[in-house]
């Protein structure tokens, strides 16, 4: 009896592991086949442009507004603490470093996953449910090249730009609150920021982060959509999975990338 329960538990763990390894393997094979089918997506560039419009331009509003507000709140809260140590001039450094290194890529990645990634999954999943993908195959049009690859590349192009925009708007929001509202000296705000933020270490690494997140989100979104169960429930499950999986992936990848990029920066 006791042994049965143990065996049951072990079997569950085993099945879970096998399932996730299988899924990972499928996702990797899917990634390779998307890459193989990418050249047609670039030859017919207007397909990709359309997806840049849907995932990038339509995400502008949410990214711009949240960037502005994150920057403003960061400035208010940061000023509160820095003022205790008489270091209010360092507000620019704090805001710029946290936005460029972390918040820009991560928060815009989370927003992008829920705004554009979920839409991608739902669209592809619904196409599958209504058998549009099968119809394309019948007409000898490869759905990977016609539907999946443009969305994948559209996401990869849009996301780093959105992330840079988020950080820029955040710095601007912090400028509004810090300099215009609180009254920190504008010269000290920008000067300290420019002295502390390094192009290669901070800006380039932040950009690399956002590019990696873009790859992860786009791949998860198109993979979940393409492999959704062709039912209404399946599409909704796939959409949820996209948001949850890409958010968790972003956070995990961010930790790993930060360890490699920024460990030991302070001690140099």
């Amino acid at each position, binding site marked *: 009896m006791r042994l049965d329960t143990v065996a049951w538990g072990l079997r569950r763990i085993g099945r879970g592991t096998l399932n996730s390894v299988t899924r990972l393997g499928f996702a990797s094979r899917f990634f390779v086949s998307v890459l193989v089918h990418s050249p047609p997506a670039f030859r017919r560039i*207007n397909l990709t442009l359309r997806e840049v419009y849907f995932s990038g331009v339509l995400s502008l509003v949410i990214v711009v507004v949240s960037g502005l507000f994150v920057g403003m709140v960061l400035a208010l809260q940061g000023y509160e603490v820095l003022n205790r140590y008489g270091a209010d001039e360092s507000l620019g450094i704090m805001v710029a470093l946290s936005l*460029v290194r972390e918040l820009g890529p991560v928060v815009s990645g989370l927003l992008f996953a829920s705004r554009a990634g979920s839409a991608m999954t739902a669209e592809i999943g619904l196409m599958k449910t209504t058998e549009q993908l099968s119809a394309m195959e019948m007409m000898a049009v490869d759905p990977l090249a016609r539907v999946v690859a443009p969305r994948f590349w559209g996401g990869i192009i849009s996301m780093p730009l959105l992330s840079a925009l988020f950080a*820029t708007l955040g710095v601007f929001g912090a400028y509004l609150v810090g300099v215009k509202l609180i009254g920190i000296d504008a010269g000290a705000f920008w000067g300290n920021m*420019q002295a502390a933020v*390094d*192009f290669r270490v*901070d800006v380039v690494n932040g950009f690399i982060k956002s590019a990696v997140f873009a790859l992860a989100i786009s791949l998860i979104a198109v993979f979940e959509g393409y492999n959704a169960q062709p039912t209404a429930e399946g599409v909704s499950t796939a959409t949820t999975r996209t948001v949850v999986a890409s958010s968790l992936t972003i956070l995990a990848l961010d930790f790993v990338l930060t360890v490699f990029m920024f460990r030991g920066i302070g001690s140099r």
Partner: protein
Amino acid sequence: MNRSTLDLWVGIFVTIGIAAVLFLSLRVGNLLTTSNAPGYRLEAAFDNIGGLKLRAPVKAAGVVVGRVERIQLDPKTYQALVTMKIDKGYEFTRDTIASILTSGLLGEVYIGLDSGGDTQMLADGARITKTQSAVVLEKLIGQFLFDKAATGNSK
């Protein structure tokens, strides 16, 4: 949506995206003045550099004239060998004193250059011979306590 409107919006999006990247690189990261600025190198050996870090500013009369480029230990003399990159256009006399200073009690550590009256100037790669090490607060307190104890005993 027709093609030209789509192109327009994507164009606007990509343009402001690239503008944001440029803003981050130039205005926030200050790309132009830090890495590409032409200049020449000076060396200085210190007994103790305290908390000096790479990219710390080099100042003369409070004006930033360069950055610390490399810090290493001289294996023979056991001194810290600091290489500074000085911006083009600034020249210093051969009897310049380089000292390691701190702005404020908790502020950043930087190198201060004080020029003397020599007529010859330091060339690229030259070594500043007159240096003043960092003031280590712990040592200073220790010395103070030691002096206090010594004067207390003699009384």
